[in-house]
C-alpha cells in the first residue's frame, strides 16, 4: 500500500512531500515521544503523531519513514513545514483524533497488506 491510497481513503490533506506519495508503506508507528519513535519505529513506517515541532522532520528523515500524519487537525509549525518541504518528507494532516486515524489505517493496511 502506498501513501497516496491512504491519503484518499482517510481524506488527508497533504502539506509537503507531494512527489513522495507513491512510496510503499511497510508499517506504522504511533508516538509523541521522539526518543521512543527513534528507538522503535522502522524504515518505511508511516508515523502518526500530534507533535508539530520541527524535530519530527529530523526524526522521520533519520528513520527514513514514508511520511508523517498529524492528527486532530494539528498543522505543522512554520519551520516544521519548511524543513519538510526542503527534505522531501511527506506531512499529511487529518481532522480526526489519533484513535480514529490509527484504527482506520490499521484496518485498511491489514486488509490490503
Amino acid at each position, binding site marked *: 500500500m502506498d501513501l497516496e491510497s491512504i491519503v484518499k481513503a482517510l481524506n488527508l490533506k497533504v502539506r509537503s512531500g507531494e512527489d513522495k506519495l507513491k512510496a510503499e508503506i511497510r508499517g506504522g508507528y504511533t508516538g509523541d*515521544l521522539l*526518543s*521512543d519513535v527513534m528507538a522503535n519505529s522502522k524504515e518505511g513506517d508511516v508515523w502518526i503523531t500530534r507533535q508539530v*515541532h*520541527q*524535530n519530527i522532520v529530523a526524526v522521520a528523515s*533519520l528513520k527514513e519513514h514514508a511520511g508523517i500524519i498529524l492528527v486532530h487537525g494539528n498543522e505543522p509549525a512554520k519551520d516544521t513545514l519548511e524543513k519538510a518541504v526542503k527534505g522531501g518528507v511527506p506531512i499529511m494532516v487529518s481532522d480526526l483524533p489519533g484513535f480514529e486515524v490509527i484504527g482506520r489505517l490499521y484496518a485498511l493496511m491489514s486488509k490490503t497488506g
Partner: protein
Amino acid sequence: MLEISLHILDIVENSTRAGAKTVSIDIIEDTERDVLSLEIRDDGSGMSEDVLRRVIDPFFTTKTVRSVGLGLPMLAQAAERADGRFIIESKGGEGTRVAADFKLSHIDRQPLGDISATLVTLVAGNKDIDIIYRHEHNGQTYIFDTREIKKELEDIPINHVTVLNFIRSHITEGLKEIGAEA
C-alpha cells in the same frame, strides 16, 4: 526522552566530544519559584558564532555519520514543553554553557530520572574528565566532585567497580539527605 537524566547524558556527550577536561552539572529544584533548572558547563573547544546560531536546528550536526543532530533540539523542546526556557552560550576556545529551565509542577515536565546511575555512567566512561555535580533543593545542597574522589584514591582508577559502587551510594544518599524529589 522519558527523563531529564537522559538529556544530561546526551549533552555531556557533546562536551566530551568537544575535548572538555571539566564538566559541571548543576540542578536546582526550587519549589517556591516552581522551577527546575539544569545547567551544564564545559571547558571544551566551544563553538563559533555561526555554529552556535544553528545548533537548535535538528538538521545541523558536525557528526559525519548522520545528517541530523538532535541532542540540543530535543532538550530545547523539552524545556519549552514544560513552560521553560533553553539557553546556550559558547565561545570558541573557551567552552560552552547549556541551560534549561522547566516549570517544576508542569504536567508535561519529565521526571529527573536516575541521577546516580547517570553520573556513574558518565564517570565510568570518562575517567580522565572531571565531573562536578551540584544539586540544590530548596536551599540545601549536595555536591559530588570527581576531583575530590581522585585525590583520595591515589593509584586506584576512578572507574574501578568498587569505586563506582561507592559513588553510586554516595550520590543516592546525598540526594536523599537534601530531599531531592524532582
